[in-house]
């Protein structure tokens, strides 16, 4: 019954707004590719061949690179790594930012001041430069890219959570829950926080786009994932040198994949919010 209702609501949201339908289908496609990618690609993404720098053809849809590797297979296989980095990083900043921001908004006082100044400090740096610094200092690994991306996104979640919790702190239903014998922590977790979720969802979807760009950007400048691992950022970086000599497909296709992913997440926001907000159901 509840599942049924959810599906009905999902169907309504997808059909009501065509943008949500487009971004939703793109999202499903990305997830399917991330899961099945390595097992459905026509070529081994690491296998080089003699056919180097071939333009797109029926054999190689996106052409081949300077080592004769199939660009199409590499773009598809790279989806898993890029999406994973983005999802884990965003989840981390979402969880930590929600807890810190909710506590700041609910209790106020010194917690609020500490959390507020910490987020201000992070925001004071150019975020990409900060991420570069972190990865450069801590070492060039996938985990460190995740941590760096999570850290620079943290302030957005903390601020949204703080503001949204703060306006609901003295709301009637919160007072009523106090009378019902809820402790502060329980009240925050079960009564206030669920009401903060819709705006947080919009934040998440926007952040996913940034996070993917950020991970790719770090790889692009050589901090982050190392070759020969297939990753959109490195592929664009490697392909960029060949654009001048006319081999445009090396950079264009991973770049287009990156663009589509960012595009998809940015458009997904409103749909996600509507999905999670019970007031949208009638």
């Amino acid at each position, binding site marked *: 019954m509840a599942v049924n209702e959810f599906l009905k609501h999902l169907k309504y949201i997808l059909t009501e707004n065509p943008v949500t339908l487009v971004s939703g289908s793109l999202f499903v496609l990305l997830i399917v590719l991330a899961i099945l990618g390595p097992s459905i690609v026509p070529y081994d993404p690491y296998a080089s061949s003699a056919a180097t720098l071939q333009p797109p053809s029926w054999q190689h849809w996106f052409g081949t690179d300077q080592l004769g590797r199939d660009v199409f297979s590499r773009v598809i296989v790279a989806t898993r790594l890029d999406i994973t980095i983005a999802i884990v990083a965003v989840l981390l900043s979402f969880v930590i930012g929600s807890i810190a921001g909710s506590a700041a908004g609910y209790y106020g006082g010194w917690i609020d001041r500490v959390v507020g100044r910490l987020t201000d400090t992070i925001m004071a740096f150019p975020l990409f430069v900060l991420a570069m610094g972190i990865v450069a200092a801590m070492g060039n690994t996938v985990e460190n890219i995740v941590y760096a991306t999570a850290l620079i996104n943290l302030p957005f979640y903390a601020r949204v959570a703080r503001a949204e919790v703060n306006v609901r702190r003295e709301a009637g239903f919160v007072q009523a829950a106090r*009378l019902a*014998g809820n402790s502060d922590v329980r009240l925050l977790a079960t009564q206030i926080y669920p009401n903060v979720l819709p705006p947080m969802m919009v934040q998440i979807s926007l952040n996913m786009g940034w996070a993917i760009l950020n991970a790719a950007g770090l790889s692009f400048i050589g901090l982050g994932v190392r070759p020969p691992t297939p990753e959109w950022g490195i592929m664009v970086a490697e392909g960029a040198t060949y654009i001048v000599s006319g081999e445009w497909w090396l950079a264009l296709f991973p770049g287009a994949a990156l663009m589509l992913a960012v595009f998809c997440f940015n458009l997904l926001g409103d749909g996600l919010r509507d999905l999670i907000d*019970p007031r949208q159901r009638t």
Partner: protein
Amino acid sequence: MNDAPKTVPILSVQGLSVDFRTRAGTVHAVKDLSFDLFRGEMIGVVGESGSGKSVTAFNIMGILDPAGRVAKGSIVFEGLDLTTADEGALSEIRGREASMIFQNPRVALNPIRQVGTQIEDVLRRHTNTLTKDLKKKAIEALDAVRIRHPEQRYYAYPYELSGGMCQRVMIALALACNPSLLIADEPTTGLDVTTQKTIMDLVRDLARERNLATILITHDLGLASQYCQRLVVMRSGEAVEAGTTEEIFLNPKHPYTIKLIKATPRIDSRLEDLSDDVVERPAAQPLPVRPEGAPPLLEVRNLVKEYGIGSSTSWFGRLLGRKVEEKKPFRAVDDVSFIVGHGESVGLVGESGCGKSTTSNTVTRLLDPTSGEILFEGQDLAKIPCKGFAGVPERRLIQMVFQDPTESLNPRFTAWRCIADPLMRLDGMRNKAELDARIRELAGMVGLPEHLLTRFPHQLSGGQKARVGIARAISVSPKLLILDEPTSALDVSVQAIVLNLLADLQARLGMSYIFVSHDLNVVRLLCDRVIVMNAGRIIETGTADEILTNPRDPYTRSLIEAVPHLDVLAANDKTFAEEPKCIA
């Protein structure tokens, strides 16, 4: 009334129908509405929420929501059909020929601009006033709405003014260009009764001075009966009855009008008079016999609550060695003492800011008092800090019904989950079947149909939400229930039902009530004793009838006089008697 020839109406609404497109399909917000309005006349459009009265007003002003459209009919204003007029013609009319006063004056004024410049905007747009004369004109406009020291008020920002003053500024704005039609959309909602009276008197006087045609949109029959010559009663988009005020009150024809008039509390009505479908009230449960000299249920002694303790010197100032000035703390509750007996109902009455909510929140232990004792059956609850009060067994003894039923229900919880919350937390009831049985029992007690229990608050009507709130409050069988304006957000017909429900529950469960309200007429229906508060102090205590018929304190008297009564004879031209007065 007016002797001017009433041949040509200034505004004529004929067969107006307005449709709205929504997810659920087309909604007919207004159906075939017709009325005429003449100069110098005030017409009341009366109805409960969702009756289409505001949609009608927005339509006349041409500021309807894009989802709505006029399906049929015409609105002819000074010879021009507003439903077909283009935007250019409409914006010429808006503000100059027809203006509007909105529900919430604080929201309707731009918060970051001085009120004088906001009036100048209208003058600049619609008149040929020279720039150097604008300020003078704006001050004249403020003076016209009897604002004292208009030269100084010109520079005030909306946040510096009280709600009543903001509404005066709104009226000044609306009348700055001498329009011939004024629409007042619930102009006194959210204002105190004494302020309501002065604002409505002002509107009436100005309308008479300038021979304005006025439409008063309100849910309050009492208010409409005192100020309007003619009424249109609306329900779900239709005008069910129209006529002069006297006709409608002395001889209402439509059953809905009769029900509405019945549900509006009068000075002498009893709770049973308010609605037809009241069944026999259960006989009051005999209260258990208590030993002589046992403490009363609640005794509040010398309760004080102060705010804003601290210095007004900033930390920067203190760093520079400036003298630390101690600010005098503000006393929201000033030495309040009262007693509530077992099974007794006590009304706590006063206007906004009088300390009644602070008092009730302190008794509910949502706030810590600065000093004083809250003796509950002899035990001082003020000793337990409110921070940890949620965890002590005494929590279940005092519960509360909140002012706004919408705001007091978690929008993400179903009605079932809302009622279950105190049962699970305070009674430790975990067994799903047991919980469900208890919740169904409670739903039955408050008259909430069981199939509504799975709904979210936004899927329930105002009255149903109020029932959920009451069921939640009584779920743990409290001994004292605090009712914080439980009906102020409800329509009168729903108010009548909720008040009756509360009386039934009290008779059945033997709870004591503290009824916090600004409306003496409503309080006396439910309460044996009434406490009147002003500026944090108790100024008068007595039985409800005593206070209503023979108030000793001048403040109480002004409070009683300001409440609009459904007095038919009063509607009869008495409104033209008094001289306008200057009120600060």
